[in-house]
């Protein structure tokens, strides 16, 4: 990807989520509190400086973006209000907004159901993983 196109992608992500990555002081509290951090290749604090450095494609290709539990722990506990959860969602959304990149497809759903699975699980998965 050209430098300009990449810069535009980073700018779009930061603008639509209102995140200021320069506020991060690298304390690592987001990663320390993240319940999914050990399942992630790149941890929440790394999302911040990788986006800052423009490494969005690397994040977009990583399984880490599907491991976020959307629990807002990193947002709540960040001492600088950087809100890493927003950036993780931003990268995930940038992926699924591209044509043909839906991570969950309707035809996959029947196989995932069990007798007790609440609708909330399917609804939330669609919202997180598909456009």
């Amino acid at each position, binding site marked *: 990807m050209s430098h300009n196109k990449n810069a535009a992608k980073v700018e779009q992500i930061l*603008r*639509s*989520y*209102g995140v200021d990555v320069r506020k991060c002081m690298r304390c690592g509290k987001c990663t320390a509190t993240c*319940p*999914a951090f050990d*399942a992630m290749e790149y941890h929440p604090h790394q999302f911040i400086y990788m986006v800052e450095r423009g490494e969005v494609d690397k994040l977009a290709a990583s399984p880490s973006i*599907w*491991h976020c*539990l*959307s*629990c*807002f*722990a990193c*947002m*709540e506990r960040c001492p600088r209000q950087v809100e890493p*959860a*927003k950036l993780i*969602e*931003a990268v995930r*959304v940038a992926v699924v907004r591209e044509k043909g990149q839906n991570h*969950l497809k309707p035809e996959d759903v029947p196989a*995932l159901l*069990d007798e*007790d*699975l*609440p*609708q*909330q*699980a*399917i*609804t*939330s*998965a669609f*919202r*997180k*993983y598909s456009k």
Partner: protein
Amino acid sequence: MKFSYYPGCTLKTKGKDLDTYARASAEALGVELAELPEWQCCGAVYPMAKDEIATKLSAVRALANARDLDTELVTLCSACHNVIKQVNNDMKTDADIVLRVNNYLKLDTPYNGETNVLHFLEVLRDRVGFDELKKKVVNPLTGRKIAAYYGCLLLRPSKVMAMDDPENPTILEDFIRAIGAEPVIYAMRNECCGGYVTIENPGEAKRRSNAVLDNAASKGADTVVTACPLCLYNLKKNGGHDDLPVVYFTELLAEALGVK
């Protein structure tokens, strides 16, 4: 005391117990929960992007309908509560979202965040009052040791949810005391159970929910209560503790009020 009530998709299907026990209890407490006409599913996850408009519309429709009925809006499911309260905050504070949502919806009266959103727990605490609730308990759950599971959605982000202290909450513990039981305090009560990845990554959902229930069990809980259908499902299915029942807080409320 009359409120508009937003049940949400799961409370009409797999999470019926959360709904029916709340309605029965509300009646016993003199609280009228009038189901909002023609409500739509909230989508179960709050879309954090400022340029996501369509995904916020169903929440705004519910909020605007409650405003038009001149009522506050009561929710029960943690996810609905989180989505609707966060969207309402956008409609109070983000002029660009307000403009675009209203351009899209073309309501008779544009919506600007007028509706007050309350979780049913807040109705119990702030409108009925836990002291009043205690007086109406006919079947106190004396001797029961109950662990409150807040999970992630009830409390966070705390600036918007504004229901309780996000790190040291008391609303569920005070509720447990009001119905005559003893609350069990444990570290994992406001940590995520991994419910949102139960489809994507069941192994992770197992690890997280097991950590929650291990912790509650180690502190001597005999029951865990939640307000979230997905937490309930995940903790029961993946928590690895058949010895520790997980129930909706409304079920225990109905039991204590003698309407179960």
